[in-house]
């Protein structure tokens, strides 16, 4: 049985052909903005409480009102927190409607479901502002750092409930800490060894819980992403207790696990913990709850206990539900978007198709919003600084070579030909919305200057000795480099880039492999140059993942320094020990993570950014490219501009709870 490896390529190709048949492209010229300037002021501040807005009466969807009448649910005021937090809608919403989106999985956290309810644990507890510069209390009512930033005290809102109506209290935090984090079967790595290490979780009362870290964790979203958000909300104590041996007879639990086809209780616990199966009944905190799951779709209904209301006291979300239509291949999503079958579509649509989407607006009854990709570079080259061939490694480690590659690229041509001129030619660095953004970082070595490239290469002794038009190594050996990549939207960028490299006499070719092989070879540092996008460079994520371009801390397989990352993440057991200049970067990275003094921390941030701008550990092409978001004309309150990236949970920081559909 043969499975073609490059079927994606085939599909994309044929879809492109299909789309071309459907309409001739018109080049659009719209500005790419990452933040909608017309967002309400309140989106940038802490959630106003209902009492502050003078709301005393709460209302709910007619569907829920019916269930209250039938005695299935308590009245809305009892379901909401004592003083519910409010979300100001872009325009007053109406209850009703099921939003259809297309997804490759039965989980709202995947693909387009995220645009409606991505809200990972991090953004439920504390939500980022639309510009990504700050993280504010959301489900929590607030938090407090100790002076040295090693202790973080969280304040829970009184009366917040899980989707089954059970109160959300510090019991949930303590259960997670005592029964999950400290349980060797569930978490084999003790929490003091995590990143950052957690030493202690304690609760003063039902609504106050304190996390003690092994080092200062002053960056808010770091504390929430890594330490708390992703973990705690997955373990509703009252529900998960029934599957934990601290509260059950172990033999009985193991027998139950075996009945379900599992060997031990920890597997069974994990099985019951998944929120994507209605029959398992695991309560959630999300705006929507799964109610049906079939091979081709998953149906979600609004969470009747969702703790937020709009500025008039109407319980959110407005939508009755969401249907995830499951597709086998993400390329199909583009066709469905094009036909107007989706309420909203964004992830995996290509900027290069924007004219086609605009062309189909009338027939598909949708509007194409232009968001920003939120990436520092759509495609960045990663010269292998750990190359196993000494001569090649010397070349790739030479900053002159990396600078030559950078200035040999004509980014304007790439932008014009592949991004309709709407992207930004830029170096791998933070996006322009960042509080740390400086032009000297994003514009470093991006000028198109083939003469300078040739000069730098000549200077290194890489000259054409044989007269075949390509440069050789100083000892006359052939200098031939391959860019390792897997088929992706980056392909055309790389094709243009290697043409430009050949202009300055560099013999560089493309080496397209399957994803598995690519991962394997990258981890083993078995490549010359690799390629990946530079993401997690907005303030929401920075310095969450420095590994791609700033310091060898993480992202082994998506970096120029796989073996150094391996050394760091394995505490020296595998990989190669980094040289001193790298260790300096690692020291700075540690300061950026942990220094409680904001001014000092900022100084180290700039040191890291400057080092990348000087050294080009990765070489950027164009970034902050246009990302089309297709919004059905009957779906309202979607911001016109935004970022379509994981950093903002694919748009779920833009309050998708207040999206609404026209009444049928």
């Amino acid at each position, binding site marked *: 049985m043969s499975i073609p490896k490059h079927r994606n390529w085939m599909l994309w190709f044929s879809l492109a052909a*299909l789309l071309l048949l459907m309409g001739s492209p018109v080049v659009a010229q719209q500005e790419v903005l990452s933040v909608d300037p017309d967002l309400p002021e309140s989106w940038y501040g802490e959630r106003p409480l209902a009492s502050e807005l003078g709301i005393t009466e709460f209302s709910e969807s007619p569907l829920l009102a019916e269930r209250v009448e039938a005695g299935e649910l308590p009245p809305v005021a009892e379901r909401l927190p004592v003083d519910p937090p409010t979300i100001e809608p872009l325009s007053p919403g109406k209850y009703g409607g099921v939003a259809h989106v297309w997804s490759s999985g039965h989980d709202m956290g995947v693909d387009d479901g995220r645009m409606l309810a991505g809200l990972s644990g991090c953004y439920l507890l504390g939500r980022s502002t639309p510009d990504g510069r700050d993280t504010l209390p959301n489900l929590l009512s607030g938090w407090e750092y100790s002076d040295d930033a090693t202790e973080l005290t969280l304040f829970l809102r009184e009366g917040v409930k899980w989707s089954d109506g059970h109160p959300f209290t510090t019991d949930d935090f303590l259960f997670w800490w005592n029964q999950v984090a400290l349980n060797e079967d569930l978490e084999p790595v003790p929490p003091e060894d995590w990143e950052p290490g957690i030493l202690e979780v304690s609760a003063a009362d039902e609504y106050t819980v304190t996390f003690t870290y092994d080092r200062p964790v002053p960056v808010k979203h770091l504390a929430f992403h890594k330490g708390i958000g992703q973990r705690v909300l997955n373990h509703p104590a009252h529900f998960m207790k029934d599957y934990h041996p601290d509260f059950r007879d172990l033999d009985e639990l193991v027998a139950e696990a075996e009945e379900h086809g599992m060997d031990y209780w920890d597997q069974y616990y994990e099985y019951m913990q*998944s929120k994507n199966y209605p029959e398992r009944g695991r309560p959630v905190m999300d705006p929507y709850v799964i109610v049906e799951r079939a091979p081709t779709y998953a149906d979600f209904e609004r969470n009747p206990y969702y703790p937020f209301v709009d500025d008039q006291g109407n319980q959110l979300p407005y939508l009755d539900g969401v249907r995830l239509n499951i597709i086998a291949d993400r390329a199909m999503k583009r066709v469905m978007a094009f036909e107007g079958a989706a309420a909203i579509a964004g992830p995996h649509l290509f900027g290069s198709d924007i004219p086609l989407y605009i062309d189909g607006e009338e027939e598909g009854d949708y509007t194409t919003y232009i968001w920003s990709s939120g990436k520092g570079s759509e495609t960045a080259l990663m010269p292998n600084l750990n190359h196993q061939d000494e001569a090649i490694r010397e070349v790739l480690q030479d900053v002159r070579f990396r600078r030559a590659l950078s200035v040999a690229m004509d980014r304007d041509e790439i932008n014009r030909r592949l991004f309709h001129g709407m992207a930004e030619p830029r170096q791998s660095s933070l996006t322009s919305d960042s509080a740390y953004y400086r032009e000297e970082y994003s514009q470093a070595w991006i000028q198109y200057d083939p003469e300078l490239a040739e000069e730098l290469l000549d200077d290194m002794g890489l000259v054409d000795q044989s007269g075949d038009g390509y440069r050789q190594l100083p000892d006359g050996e052939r200098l031939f480099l391959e860019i390792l990549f897997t088929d992706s939207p980056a392909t055309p960028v790389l094709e243009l880039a290697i043409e430009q490299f050949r202009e300055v006499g560099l013999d560089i070719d493309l080496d397209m492999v399957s994803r*598995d092989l690519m991962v394997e070879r990258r981890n083993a540092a078995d490549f010359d140059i690799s390629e990946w996008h530079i993401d997690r460079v907005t303030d929401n994520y920075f310095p969450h993942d420095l590994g791609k371009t700033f310091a060898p801390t993480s992202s082994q397989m998506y970096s120029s320094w796989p073996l150094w990352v391996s050394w760091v993440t394995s505490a020296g057991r595998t990989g190669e020990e980094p040289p001193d200049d790298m260790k300096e970067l690692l020291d700075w990275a540690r300061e950026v993570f942990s220094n409680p003094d904001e001014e000092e921390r900022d100084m180290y941030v700039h040191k890291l950014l400057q080092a990348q701008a000087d050294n080009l550990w990765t070489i950027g092409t164009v970034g902050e490219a246009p990302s089309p978001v297709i919004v059905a004309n009957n779906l309202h309150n979607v911001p016109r501009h935004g970022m379509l990236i994981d950093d903002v949970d694919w748009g779920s920081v833009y309050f998708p709870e207040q999206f609404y559909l026209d009444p049928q």
Partner: protein
Amino acid sequence: MAVYILRRLVYLIPTVLLISIISFAVINAPPGDILSSQVQELEQQYGPAAQRQIEALRTRYGLDQPVYMRYFPWIVGIITRLDFGMSFSGAYGIEFRPVVDILAERLGYTVLISVLTLGFTWVAAIPIAVYSAAWQRSVFDYVFTFIAFVGRSMPNFLLALLLMYFVYTNFGWSLGGMFSSEYVGQPWSWGRFVDFLRNLVVPVIVIGTAGMATIVRVLRATMLDELGKDYVQTARAKGVPEWKVLWTHPVKVAILPIVSTIGWMLPMIFSGSVITAIVLNLPTIGLTLYTALRAQDMYLAGSCVLVFSVLTVIGTLISDIILAKIDPRIRYD
């Protein structure tokens, strides 16, 4: 005859077991496992402890065991309890789900599409082939020979896209999936049934065309062989009407090689339909196998291959029985 069938049934068991061993070994041969895709996420949560966490998870999921230690409990579970093991794959992060649940919800559609496709292939191919052979070098013969070659050589997915485009622009049907969106998850009704049939037309044509072209070519060639033989001449000389000559004698002989193809037509329809299933978004097992292989979800992938191989040997068995029934030359020993 009964003894023959019984003996063939006994032979099935070692065949299927052998296939399962080989396929399981092959599935587990590539480097890495389902955790490989989680490494980045774990690195960020656990920092320098990520490697330890990965090793611990490998132990939890039994991935640190050698292949045979994973194979035996799995196959024993299938034989004794019809327990196909656990699928690990989630869209994001590891998620447990019994493989048997996944197969169960897809088996019906898979068999339905396969049987319909097989039926379509035969119903369309046999008359065309017989006609082409009987009126060799006629306009009709050339036209169908041409279509057959195009059908054989055009990739299924391309045909699927073209047909989708065609029905979308001409009838306004948006195909993809088994039902149009208004009928998904609804109880059965007349409208839903019609919608279901409508959504089946394209996949059946697309998957059936390639097989159809093969059958047309094979059947036509055998028919041409047979038509020149003496017994056909004799029948014609006796004054038997031409249609009767064709359908009673040479077709019976020429159909034999086609019957023997049932065995491999079934898996071809399953596996050959993977890309079509992707394009048309059909919930078939072929598609599940494909995603399972990509995710290195070994028990799910192994179970899919096992299901395929069981269907294949059953298909072969059926074709052997039919052949034994209709071909008097076959001996039962």
